[in-house]
């Protein structure tokens, strides 16, 4: 128990340091982007959150398969926690994306391939959390959520292709995308640091969330 708390605390500090470093990189080290100006710095938030969200849902897939195979409650807790954090990060991606889009594209929302894919992702896993919330028996919730977690994850590549074809075959290829034309060293470095920082934050959140889930189960036993 104490060991677990120490690990959790260490992860927390690691994440905090990472995020601090990420902010420094994003605002002090990364250069001002030529075409968009400083508003492009939102990318150091937007891209890491979406990448970590995909990581989260990949973990949901693996944990769901593991649960159906082994019926290990730890796998179920991991799936649940990862889905929750994943939905949080996906929501932030959409939010940051919209805020970035307004000054650069002139609109809060556009049905471009990336934003649309992420929106569908958000709704799918929000449904996952909804399903879990609506089933009272813990064991049944775990089983059903595992099935949904697997189907949703398998759907992701299909969503990507379909949405991408849906947009790009009717839009002119010169559609502006938020992102620098070429990645300079400074921009790439800042992006990588932030990706690592948000990944650490994800690990910390999932660790804490699974601990809470386990304590809740113990309290009910």
């Amino acid at each position: 128990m104490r060991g677990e708390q120490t690990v959790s605390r260490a992860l927390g500090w690691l994440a905090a340091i990472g995020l601090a470093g990420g902010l420094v990189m994003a605002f002090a080290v990364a250069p001002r982007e030529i075409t968009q100006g400083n508003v492009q710095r939102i990318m150091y938030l937007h891209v890491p959150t979406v990448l970590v969200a995909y990581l989260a849902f990949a973990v949901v897939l693996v944990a769901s398969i593991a649960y159906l195979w082994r019926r290990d409650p730890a796998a179920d807790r991991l799936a649940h926690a990862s889905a929750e954090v994943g939905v949080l990060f996906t929501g932030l991606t959409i939010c940051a994306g919209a805020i970035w889009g307004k000054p650069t594209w002139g609109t809060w929302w556009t049905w471009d391939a990336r934003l649309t894919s992420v929106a569908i992702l958000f709704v799918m896993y929000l449904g996952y959390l909804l399903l879990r919330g609506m089933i009272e028996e813990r064991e049944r919730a775990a089983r059903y959520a595992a099935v949904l977690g697997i189907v949703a994850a398998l759907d992701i590549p299909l969503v990507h292709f379909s949405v991408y074809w849906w947009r790009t075959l009717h839009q002119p290829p010169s559609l502006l995308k938020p992102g620098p034309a070429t990645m300079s060293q400074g921009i790439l470095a800042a992006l990588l640091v932030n990706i690592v920082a948000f990944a650490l934050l994800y690990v910390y959140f999932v660790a804490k969330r699974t601990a809470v889930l386990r304590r809740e189960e113990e309290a009910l036993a």
Partner: protein
Amino acid sequence: MTYARRAWIVLWKDAVTERRAKATLNALLFFSLLLLFVFQFTLGADRERLVAALPGLLWLSFVLTGLVGLGRAFLVERENDCWDGLLLAPGDKSAIYLGKVAGNLILMLIVEAILLALFAVFFNVDIGRALPALGLILPLGTIGFAAVGTLFAAMTAHVRAREVLFPVLLLPVQVPVLLGAVKATEAALAGEPLGAVGHWLQLLAAADVVYLVAGLLTFDALLEG
């Protein structure tokens, strides 16, 4: 009892129940006819716009009717306390899934065919030359819908607020199928060769395979306890 025979029995049982009750098919047909009226009232003022939106409206009707129909997929078992019967069936329960999907698929295809004819009549659209292509596109799209729909129907059968949860879970997952089907239908109605939308058809086929395999592998887990 072989796997195929078990699946066939489920399909046959549903078909016989359906033929005796006739409730579901009639209700679905009536519902889809009403949708047609609603589309006319809401969009019909501008005929050009309506005809241009036809592929989308067609699949919108299929989806909405499917949601109503599939939402009831396990209703008979639930209402008549036959759920335990399903649970106790020996052997591979995925055969039940296959039988259910086949039954739902046939039901939906019947409704879609009739609805297609009604659309052509009411909106005065010539679909004759597109029929062979549509004969491929409609099943490709509907299989995906039936495969995931049947799985999710079993999943939400015993959940609170299943009437809301079922479409909420199904619709986002079905986006690829919806996009592919509408795009392919658009091309078919415009008289384009199927080759032009080959990538969409491949996507639909791939989706169908993925969903069916996922359903076959996971249906068992839904039926326990």
